[in-house]
Structures are given as C-alpha cells and as structure tokens.
C-alpha cells in the first residue's frame, strides 16, 4: 500500500495495531455501519419474497426461526446499539460537549451496549 494518502488505502482503517482507544471507536462505527447497510439490503430482498404468496411467507417464517437467523438478528441488534450509542458520543463531541472525556464516555457507552446486548441474548435464546 502506498505511503501517501490514496482512496484505496481504506483497509488500513481496520488495522488496530499501534492505535489508541479512539480508533477502536472509529473501527466499531465503520464495521457496524457496513453490517447494518448489508442487513437493510437483505431485509429488502426478504420482503420482496413475501410478495410471492402465502407459501413463500410460511417458508420464510420457518427459515427465520432457525437459530442461525436468531444469531443474525442478535448481531443486527448489537450493531444498532453500538452504532447508535457511539454515534451519540460523536454527535455530542461535534457540539463541543464531552470532548475531553471522550475516552471515558466511549468506555461507559460500550459497557451500556454490552449490557443491552446481554439482555437481548438472554431474552432471545431463553424463549427457545
């Protein structure tokens, strides 16, 4: 990869080596954004399937009851929670709020995210 700035240097965004906490926030936001965009696309394709009648609908519902789909749903929830909370931190910072304590805010928000994700994991997988 060239040393000077180039658009195709983007894989370096995801390289966490020799980086500080801020980059982890940056990486998390990008990964979750990509994940959510992909989900939206898949969601639209799945909705398109429903228009193909009752059998297609039943088949689809049976498919989404699969534990693998549940795991996927959990990942979507996790991505939404992480991206949303991290986004609040960045938006507040852009209004000049909490810039000097952004690291502490990041850790606190990610702990909240972890708690919410754990709650949903329990809810989704305990109900069978």
């Amino acid at each position: 990869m060239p040393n000077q700035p180039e658009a195709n240097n983007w894989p370096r965004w995801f390289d966490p080596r020799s980086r500080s906490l801020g980059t982890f926030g940056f990486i998390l936001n990008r990964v979750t954004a990509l994940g959510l965009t992909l989900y939206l696309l898949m969601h639209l394709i799945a909705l398109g399937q429903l228009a193909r009648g009752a059998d297609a609908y039943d088949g689809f519902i049976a498919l989404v009851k699969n534990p693998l789909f549940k795991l996927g749903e959990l990942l979507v929830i996790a991505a939404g929670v992480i991206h949303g909370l991290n986004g609040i931190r960045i938006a507040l910072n852009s209004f000049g709020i909490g810039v000097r304590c952004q690291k502490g805010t990041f850790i606190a928000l990610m702990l909240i995210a972890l708690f919410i994700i754990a709650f949903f994991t329990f809810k989704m997988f305990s109900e069978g």
Partner: protein
Amino acid sequence: MTEQLWQVHFKVHRQRTGGKPYVRTFTLDVDPEEYILDAVERIWALHDRTLTYRHACHHSTCGACGMRVNGREKLTCITTISSVTQNGGTVRIDPLRNFPVVSDLVVDMGNFFLRMDRSGFNSVAPLAAACLPYEQPLTAENSIDHEPERLVDCIECGLCISVCPAANTDKEYVGPAVLASLHLMYVQNPTQEFIDQADHHTGLWRCHSAYECTEVCPSGVDPAWRIMDMRKKVMSDRIKSIFRPRSSEKKNAQPA
C-alpha cells in the same frame, strides 16, 4: 547513562525515490536511556552512510525527526529506547505515513507546510492565546521570562497527519495540524475568515473522530479538541441563522 548496555535490533525502512521499500536490520549495543534518534544517527555514522533521515534541534522544537517507531508516530529525539523495547528486543523504524516517501525515513512535507502557511499559521502568539482555551492562561507576570508573547505549541512535525485515518484515504484533507492552526488564529482574531477556511468537506467535516491526533501530538496542541470547538462554532452559527430573520425580512421590518 545506565551502566548496562542493551543489544537491540533496529529494523529500518529503506527506500529510494519511487523504488521498492525493503527493511534492513542493524544490531547495536545501546544505552537504554538513549533516544531513538541517537540510534538512527549511529546507524548512519557507523553502519550505513546512505541512510537518510531528518533532524535538527534534538530537543523537540524543530519537529523534523518524526518517524514511526514500532508503528506509532514519535518524535525520535525524545523517545527513549527503553520506552519502546527491551534488552534483546527489536525496534521497527518507518517513515511517517500520509506523506510521499522521498528516501528512507525522509518524507515530503512540502504540501503540509504550504497548507500551514495558507492557514496564516504564526509561530508566535500573545500569552493568553498561545495556550489552549481550556487551560489557565499565562500572564507576563507569572511567565518565566515575563515576555507578553511566546512560541505556540505546534512544531509542525506532522505526526498528527501521519496517524489520522481520514488523512490516510483523502489527499485533499487538510489534516489536524492545519485545522488546529486555523483555530489558533481564530482564537487570536475571531473573524469569519478562519472559520470559512475550515468549514468544508476536506476540512472540519472530514474528521471522523478517531482522536489519534491528540494522542500522538508531542506538544499538547490537542488538535481534536480544536476541531470540535470549531465545529461547535459552525453548528451554533447555523442553528442561530435558522431563527435570524433573513435580510429581506429585516428590511421589511424596518420602520419606513
């Protein structure tokens, strides 16, 4: 000086202009409290006179000796060997990123200096403006030399540009130091001109809040805070402008 010498392997980035990069390893016996720049100079003096690198002051003032040490941006004249490795360990030395390599550890910072110049960067400022706005300002009475001005903190080393993930993919992005300079100029002279220079998609809004610039800055400039402070100004001006009557409405509101 400590008594015991350490044996350290220095893996140094080598590259001729436009050529393929490669790594050459030099093993030196060093005092662990020596600086990385001392080791680089020793490599040049005793092992390989073709190695190129930049330095001048040796005391964190000129900003010339910035390199990546084990992947992290450092001013090598103030980075001790013991802070980055151990006896028998390895130290990787690479040029700064986000600048074209001229040769080995030397990068072309011409564009960066031009941008700093265009921002109106002035290395001297009145005491109250030279520090960060959230710091306790010095006064001529309580400063050491009783001078009314001092050198500003930014030494134009470029470490913040090298570490910035946004600068990594956008060559038009002016980068943290230039935005910090515009903020510094705005603090001294609050005119719209400096805000306008920063308020565009390759300026304030290209920053993606990784805060790495503030982490690596060896001089306490806190570019990330300055960027966010300018964003606050731009955002509050925009919000106020929504509620401000337009100039035509203003005219109509004036008594005949």
